[in-house]
């Protein structure tokens, strides 16, 4: 197991370095200038600014400097916000995003599991069909459409919830529903399939035959065995959450990392784009690693296969 994790961490670091290099060279290819008042600047001022941010050096030198700084944890300074550290900006912005992401993940998973279990236990009933309809809708309807409809009906028309901004729990409800919809749908569907498969296994019949109460069969045998494979879809789900926060933060004007990322793209603030890209990528790689390790612990076949290659 130790060797497997070690190998995975090394390949993870290589992936990260490749992403960092790729991001750097893609940034160099970008058209446009990062200085928002370029028209008002004189030639000398532009040269001075370029000098200050090291933009006059040849690209390989810039690349070398960038990677060197990156390895010591320095992500550079923002072009737009007068020399503020990118890492400080990420630190400020991560709070609302992390809160929103975790809240959506936890709430979505609990509701999804609940719906999936009910649907499987009441197979082919009204509840089952209802859950499947919710699942198809949740997977199909784009999150920004859900967000927009909620903003209009719940926020503007009925005035039940604040329309936008970030100021306490009430402000998190609509964004959470918009982001969690896909989590609920995916998990409910997956859990239902798994439950139905487990319910058809011989050991369930054995458990029933030896006189176990149906509650005990459901809780101890069915749900436990059915929920193990859920871990496999956690990776893609967390990625979906990141996509979700990106646009949902934009719609609800939440001062999070996703909103900052989108705005830095629109204003050509290269260091912020690169910093947030690397941050998202690192998060993504770590999540995949954790999911793989957890799955390796649960299912020894994965560990063995992984160790060989």
């Amino acid at each position, binding site marked *: 197991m130790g060797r497997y994790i070690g190998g995975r961490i090394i390949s*993870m670091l290589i992936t*990260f370095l490749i992403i960092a290099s790729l991001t750097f060279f*893609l940034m160099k290819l970008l058209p446009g200038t990062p200085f928002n008042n370029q028209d008002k600047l004189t030639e000398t001022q532009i040269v001075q600014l370029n000098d200050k941010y090291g933009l006059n050096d040849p690209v390989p030198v810039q690349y070398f400097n960038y990677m060197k700084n990156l390895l010591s944890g320095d992500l550079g300074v923002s072009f737009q916000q007068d020399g503020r550290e990118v890492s400080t900006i990420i630190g400020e912005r991560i709070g609302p995003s992390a809160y929103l992401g975790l809240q959506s993940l936890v709430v979505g998973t609990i509701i999804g599991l609940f719906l999936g279990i009910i649907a499987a236990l009441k197979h082919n009933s009204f509840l089952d069909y209802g859950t499947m309809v919710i699942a*198809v809708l949740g997977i199909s309807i*784009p999150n*920004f*459409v859900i967000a*927009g409809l909620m903003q209009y009906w719940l926020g503007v028309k009925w005035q039940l919830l604040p329309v936008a901004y970030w100021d306490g729990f009430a402000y998190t409800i609509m964004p959470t529903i918009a982001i969690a919809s896909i989590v609920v749908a995916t998990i409910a569907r997956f859990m239902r399939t798994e439950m139905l498969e487990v319910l058809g296994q011989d050991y369930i019949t054995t458990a029933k035959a030896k006189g176990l109460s149906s509650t005990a069969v459901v809780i101890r045998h069915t749900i436990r065995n059915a929920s193990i494979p859920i871990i496999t879809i956690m990776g893609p789900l967390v990625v979906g959450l990141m996509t979700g926060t990106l*646009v949902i933060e934009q719609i609800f004007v939440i001062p999070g990392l996703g909103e900052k990322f989108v705005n830095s793209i629109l204003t050509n603030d290269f260091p912020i784009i690169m910093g947030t890209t690397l941050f998202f990528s690192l998060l993504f790689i770590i999540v995949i690693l954790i999911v793989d390790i957890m799955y390796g612990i649960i299912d020894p076949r994965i560990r063995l296969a992984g160790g060989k290659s």
Partner: protein
Amino acid sequence: MSMKQEKLHDISDDMFQPAKIDSSENELIARESTGFWKDAWRRLTKNPGAITGLIIIVAIIILAIFGPGMNEHSYSEQELTRAKLPARVPVLENIDFLGVNGVDIRGTNQYEAKGYEDEYFWFGTDEFGRDQWTRVWQGTRISLFIAAAAAFIDFAIGVAYGGISAYYGGRVDNILQRIIEVLIGIPNLILIILFILIFEPGIFSIILALSVTGWIGMSRIVRGQVLKLKTQEFVLASRTLGATSGRVIGKHLIPNVLGQIIITTMFTIPNAIFFEAFLSFIGLGLRPPEASLGSIINNGFKSLQIYPHLVLWPSIIISLIMIAFNLLGDGLRDAFDPKLRK
């Protein structure tokens, strides 16, 4: 009891004839056999969800083709005096609760207020007075085109990459799979956004950006299937008879993976539509006057509180497309799954 016995006695031997015994007819197949595709189609048509999805898709494609030409307005024709009119449909305007009578949320009939009593804009007009019906279907056309093109590129690259990787195996497979491992570590959304930034915004750069990582899923599925198939006896038999690699791949492997490929494509299309809408939505999509569903929704968002109709119709259509493709994809998955065969 006695009645029955009496009846039995009534049946005499001469009422019987010897059966013709012809061993050559024993194995005769009386009915046409049900092949894989026919069986899958039969099971698909029995799935109400899949059929609903199929009908919605066909209807939306027809509307996307003919919708923009169904009235006299073009998608870029501007007229500021008739900006932001609510939806108004002939006949249906007399039924109040449908909300297509040209009355805005404040209760005034905008068509009368602005002097367009004789005009009908079925989905209303946008902030420049452009006909929303024409724009929405034009946008649907572009969204569907982008999705279809992205799905096709994913299909072409994915099948080739996965097929080569699995078929040749060994070192080739090892190298190709290491590349995929790196690519999969990059959040695809971020990669898509970076590529969009480099290319000039437009339909083709969106298609390209979507294809950068889009093919990975397809290649993994094809690889898995080919790995499973290539060790089976019928492939060995074909090789023994002297078939070339090209023939084995084209005649034996691809047809057997085709079901999986179709299912994956069915899920690629809604995914591409979502990503395209998403990019347009955060302002990285098409430039006006061109429009896709995503950019129309994004535009409408600016005036959501006063003119909800600008967001409502394109949102309904994009949701319908996504639901339809997901339903059809689910139906196909069940139809192609031999385990679910009854």
